[in-house]
């Protein structure tokens, strides 16, 4: 009897565990899989060295085309095989999948696209290989062909380098001139203060009630875009940054409140899009590929890369975008010096520590970054090139808005190169989404404070 009872209890506990464990395993099942394999295999693999490239498939084919075109003209094609294996995932999931893949020799790719904000964290984890021995013999790296600020961005104190930056960007206020015209506004628009932006929204809402006046990424699902394109563009415009001068995270301040209040005003006054459109992972594409070209959106706070969509090769070709779209610099809070603000980020090509073909990988990486191959790719991406010599190219520099957006780079802010940033940024996203869905800015900031303190520890935070 006793034994039976014992057995029954054991079984009951096992059952409970199994059912809760089922729930847990579902999470892994959801994140795993989905990896698309499109192989750029030459006919006969033979004794060739095989390298694989991993990047995020966001629905456009520009990155895939870049690597494919590079391989098609690659001189060492008969020695090296390149496997193009994009990851189809939301931005946040991409970083998680990459982090998992980089932990094992069996899954680590040979070249990986890293967002420069995630770089610091992955370097700290020891996932990425130091490229400085390879870069020593890479002429263009050492002769100033790459923008100094970007080279500094990937160079660590001991001189080690963990990625070759392949694009950079700036952000600003994109606006549809047709909507502005219909609302009776000047089509050459440059707001001086945040209030100017809000006033313009008010006019648009009144004159064109069917148009969404203002769109900024605001949800957890849009990941880093919410942190960088929205919150940090606002926060750095107040004069404050994420970290103070002692590298402590500022978790509570007047300026955080100011930034959140701006977001709150946009949504509480009805200037923003409906929550169902803005709080899902597709929000960035909805605004840039659908709403802005169709004249359903007046102003979009977004990055230069959105113009890549409008080219013939893009995801949403818009032949007249040069005339119908305008770009204004994002003003500082009250128009205080320097008058406007932009954040700048970008992506880099890195080689995982566990890659077993580092030499071949670096050789192909170099070829991808060679003038002709890279020029076509960066134009297709609609992003700002990291090589200075590209800017003298006619096709590149004559792209609409290129000059203005590149000029924003002077005085651009970069995200903190801190390995905790990739965790803190997720708390920023939660904070912004809370405000958008009705939490008061004060409560959202209190939540942010609690979350950040929990993640980085009491000793790394400060209140202003």
């Amino acid at each position, binding site marked *: 009897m006793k034994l039976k009872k014992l057995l029954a209890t054991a079984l009951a506990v096992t059952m409970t565990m199994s059912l809760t464990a089922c729930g847990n395993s579902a999470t892994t099942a959801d994140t795993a899989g989905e990896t698309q394999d499109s192989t750029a295999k030459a006919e006969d693999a033979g004794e060739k060295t095989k390298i694989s490239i991993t990047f995020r498939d966001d629905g456009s084919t520009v990155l895939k085309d870049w690597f494919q075109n590079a391989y098609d003209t690659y001189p060492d094609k008969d020695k090296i095989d390149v496997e193009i294996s994009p990851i189809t995932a939301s931005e946040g999931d991409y970083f*998680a999948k990459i982090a998992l893949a980089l932990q094992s020799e069996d899954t680590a790719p040979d070249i990986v696209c890293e967002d420069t904000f995630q770089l610091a964290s992955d370097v700290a984890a020891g*996932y990425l290989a130091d490229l400085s021995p390879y870069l020593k013999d890479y002429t263009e790296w050492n002769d100033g062909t790459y923008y100094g600020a970007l080279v500094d961005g990937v160079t660590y104190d001991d001189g080690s380098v963990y990625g070759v930056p392949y694009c950079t960007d700036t952000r600003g206020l994109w606006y549809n001139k047709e909507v502005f015209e219909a609302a009776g506004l000047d089509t050459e628009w440059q707001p001086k203060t945040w209030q100017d932006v809000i006033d313009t929204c008010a006019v648009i809402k009144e004159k064109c009630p069917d148009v969404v006046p203002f769109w900024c990424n605001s949800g957890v699902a849009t990941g880093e875009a919410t942190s960088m394109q929205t919150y940090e563009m606002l926060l750095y415009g107040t004069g404050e940054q994420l970290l103070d001068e002692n590298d402590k995270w500022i978790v509570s301040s007047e300026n955080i409140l100011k930034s959140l209040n701006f977001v709150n005003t946009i949504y509480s006054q009805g200037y923003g899009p409906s929550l169902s459109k803005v709080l899902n992972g597709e929000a960035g594409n909805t605004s840039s590929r659908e709403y802005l070209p169709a004249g359903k959106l007046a102003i979009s706070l977004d990055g230069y890369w959105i113009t890549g969509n409008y080219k013939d090769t893009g995801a949403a070709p818009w032949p007249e975008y040069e005339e119908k779209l305008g770009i204004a610099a994002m003003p500082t809070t009250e128009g205080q010096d320097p008058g406007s603000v932009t954040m700048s980020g970008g992506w880099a090509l890195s080689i995982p520590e566990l890659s077993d073909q580092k030499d071949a990988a670096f050789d192909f990486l170099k070829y991808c970054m060679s003038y002709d191959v890279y020029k076509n790719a960066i134009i297709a991406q609609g992003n700002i090139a990291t090589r200075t010599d590209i800017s003298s190219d006619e096709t590149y520099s004559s792209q609409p808005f290129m000059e203005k957006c590149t000029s924003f780079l002077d005085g651009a802010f970069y995200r903190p190169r801190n390995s905790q940033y990739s965790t803190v940024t997720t708390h920023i996203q939660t904070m912004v989404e809370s405000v958008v869905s009705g939490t008061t800015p004060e409560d959202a900031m209190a939540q942010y404070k609690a979350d950040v303190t929990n993640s980085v520890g009491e000793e790394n935070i400060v209140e202003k």
Partner: protein
Amino acid sequence: MQQLKASGTPFLYPKKEENMNKKQNEVYVEAKKSVLLVPAIILLIVFFVTPIILTVYYSFTNLALSGENAKQLKFIGFSNYISMFKDRTVRISIVNTLIFLLGSLIGQQVLGFAIALLMKNKNKVFRGIIGPIFLAGWIMPEVVVALCCSTFFGDEGTLNQIFAFLHLPNVEFLYAIPMVTVILANVWHGTAFSMMNFQSALDGVPSDIEEAARVDGANRFQTMIRIILPCIKNTIATNTMLNTLSTLGVFGLIYMMTGGGPGTSTLTLPIFMYRQAFVSQQLGYGTAISMLLLVIGIILSVFYTRIMKNN
């Protein structure tokens, strides 16, 4: 006496041997049974017990997906648990989990019971057609259910189309009443399971007792409360326990429909655990939260088992 004893022995001896043989035989049979169980036990240990033990262990470490902590796995004692109790989002998610659980339980049980009751004593053809329709929601994978429900409750979804036809205002279900919406989706998904359980229980209620009650003058309502419900109370308890455990672990449905948002309004423990582990990249903290989920599951099952016993 002596003689008796002496004469008795030859008779007793073979009996003893028989006993011994019987015992040996039993041991042999038991051993054979155990050997047959070995593969199952090995599978359970490798794929089930080990991960659970590892999860318990990781919840006491600083395990991270990326960053310095990913490099040096350290035992950090109860730190994760201490920060968990300080974390207000944990409290929000516990409350959300309980609301989701309670809503789903009531919905699934009441609806499942009602459908089973209505289908009782109906003809076979009717049951054969209606039953599978309800089952459709249950046999569908969670992902498909989430997709169906998202399109049904969406901004331009079926329900809003119906509303528009009836000249009712458009409702953003997933944003205005997110918790109700995910509960409804989960109820739709899980009702069939309860219905099946109740159906078999109701079929087991002897019809003569019901008839006797009716002869004694009990109306339908009284029959149900006094006769049917007490007869199937064990099914109710088992069903509640099974539903509780499966509902506690619901992840895909909520993740796909609302992602835990807007804000924290549908942030249940599994979603919060996922966010901490894979989005904020703090695996150690995430596993600590999963332990909390496990503890809640165990508490609730013990609670149900007690109630069953007392009855």
